[in-house]
């Protein structure tokens, strides 16, 4: 659908997007995730042909979008865009939605037929005659989606569509995005700094950091097999450095970190240095006295709790077991296990839940 080749965009001497190559497939939901200021917005704007790249090319269905200003306009008219901060014009909701059709020279008849349909899609049918600036943020964002969808675009671009919204409005927008994708087969490209959202919605995810596309893959790959320390940290995993493979039998390796040995699956050879990534949800905690050979979990590490960080209904428990391990457990389990700082506990993690990368002394290794 869209092929991006070596795309770079610089403002002055600062390169906001660096050498990004990417292929977006027809009908998929592709989310671009990355920290704030990593270049997601710049990338989305380039794809919508709002800005002209410093170098590199974008092909839309095989057509080179840089051919002429007219080509850019015609291709842009096959896409819809929803911005992070919804901008509505100071006219009625229906007039706001009609703009795209008006610009394309559609008849008034066609406009009166299509606008209510689009408003119905976003659940704002009865808002048609309201003045758009009087709407709430969530409603404005839905108007923006209706406005983009009314022209029946092949591609819908959304730049952090829920960044400024409350959780309820956010959910509504997410449902809408999925529905649009399923019902109309619209290809969706969406940026978000909310990695959970990215994971929830996406067929595929691209991770952008410092203007570079550092990893592309399905949500499982991104969240369980991050391609580097920085990506891991962004998707919620702390890296464990300083591992050395001490033995490997058919991919089943023994890795030493400090004085402790872990079992993990990797192709790294004996003697190679390794970084380990363990999702905190994959770490189980059991009281020190109850440990033993009962569990099927091979890796059992006694340790001391050094920190408890509440996070919503969960608690992030930091355990020092020779290396630092984080576990995410529910608040209820935390109370039941009577966990406090200083408690001795056994942390367990399955060998299959440990993601191993070679340590190149480069934390951003890709």
């Amino acid at each position: 659908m869209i092929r991006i080749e070596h795309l770079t965009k610089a403002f002055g001497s600062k390169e906001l997007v660096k050498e990004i190559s990417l292929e977006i497939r027809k009908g998929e939901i592709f989310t671009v995730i990355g920290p704030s200021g990593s270049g997601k917005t710049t990338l989305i704007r380039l794809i919508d042909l709002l800005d002209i790249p410093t170098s590199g090319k974008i092909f839309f269905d095989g057509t080179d979008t840089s051919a002429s200003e007219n080509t850019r306009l015609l291709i842009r008219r096959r896409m819809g865009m929803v911005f992070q901060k919804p901008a509505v014009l100071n006219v009625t909701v229906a007039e706001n939605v009609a703009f795209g059709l008006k610009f394309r020279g559609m008849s008034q008849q066609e406009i009166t037929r299509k606008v209510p349909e689009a408003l119905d899609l976003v659940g704002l049918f009865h808002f048609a005659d309201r003045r758009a600036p009087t709407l709430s943020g969530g409603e404005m964002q839905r108007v923006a989606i209706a406005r983009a969808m009314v022209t029946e675009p092949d591609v819908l671009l959304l730049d952090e569509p829920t960044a400024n919204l409350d959780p309820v409005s956010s959910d509504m927008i997410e449902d809408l995005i999925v529905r649009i994708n399923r019902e109309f087969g619209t290809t969706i490209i969406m940026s978000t700094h909310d990695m959970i959202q990215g994971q929830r919605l996406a067929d595929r995810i691209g991770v952008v950091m410092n203007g570079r596309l550092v990893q592309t893959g399905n949500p499982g790959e991104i969240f369980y097999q991050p391609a580097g320390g920085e990506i891991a940290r962004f998707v919620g995993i702390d890296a464990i450095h300083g591992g050395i493979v001490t033995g490997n039998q058919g991919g089943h390796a023994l890795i030493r970190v400090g004085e402790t040995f872990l079992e993990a699956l990797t192709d790294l050879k004996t003697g190679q240095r390794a970084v380990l990534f363990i999702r905190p949800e994959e770490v189980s905690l059991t009281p020190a006295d109850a440990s033993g050979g009962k569990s099927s979990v091979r890796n059992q590490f006694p340790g001391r709790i050094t920190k408890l960080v509440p996070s919503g209904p969960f608690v992030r428990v930091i355990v020092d077991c020779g290396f630092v391990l984080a576990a995410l457990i529910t608040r209820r389990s935390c109370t039941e296990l009577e966990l406090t700082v200083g408690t001795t506990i056994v942390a367990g993690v399955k060998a299959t839940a440990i993601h191993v990368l070679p340590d190149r002394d480069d934390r951003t290794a890709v």
Partner: protein
Amino acid sequence: MNDIADGLSQAVNLIVTLNPDVMQIAALSLYISLSATILAALIAIPAGGFIHFHEFYGKRALMILIQTLYSVPTVVVGLVLYLLISKAGPLGFLGLLFTPAGMILGQTVLIIPIMMGLVISALGGVDRNISDTLVSLGATNFQKIVEIIKEARFAILSAVVLGFGRAIAEVGVAMMVGGNIDTQTRVLTTAITLETGMGKFGFSIALGILLLTVALVVVVVLNLITSGISPDSPWMRGGPQG
């Protein structure tokens, strides 16, 4: 004290009886200043739009020049115009000196800078996201400019109102270019100057009240127009609320 009391009662009398002299002066004032306002708007809005939507060398210097001209004394415009359109001047052949047409020209020149400057800031006040949104919706460059001007309509209208205010209230151009000729180029402000000089305070006060009334009517009418356009939107605002 007597002068004021006498003057006031005389003024009320002149207005209530629709004194033909007073009415003629008021009508001429309105005609000249409204014409100048319309002409200036026809020039200032497109020109302001051009300046806003284009990047060119010297744009900032031009903006500073325009803002400086906000406060150009009316007598300076009068003087320059006098030199241009007097018989010996380069535009003398047009025969504009001491005519209403000449006064319209003078007031137009006088209020173009303030109108243009305020139009530029009105357009600048439209959220940048609006421009991006329009482009993303498939607008051509021309369609985009038209919609942004529409979006800034209230702020542009207030620029026009301010221009009208400056035109109807000024004395310098009217006096020097118009010459304050009775029944021909005598307007409210020049008449007030003259009648006050002659001690006819009643006449002056009546004209003063009329001047304010005219301004009031124009502002109220524009108010009605704008609030008619949008009953529940913030009045005289360029863009949507953040």
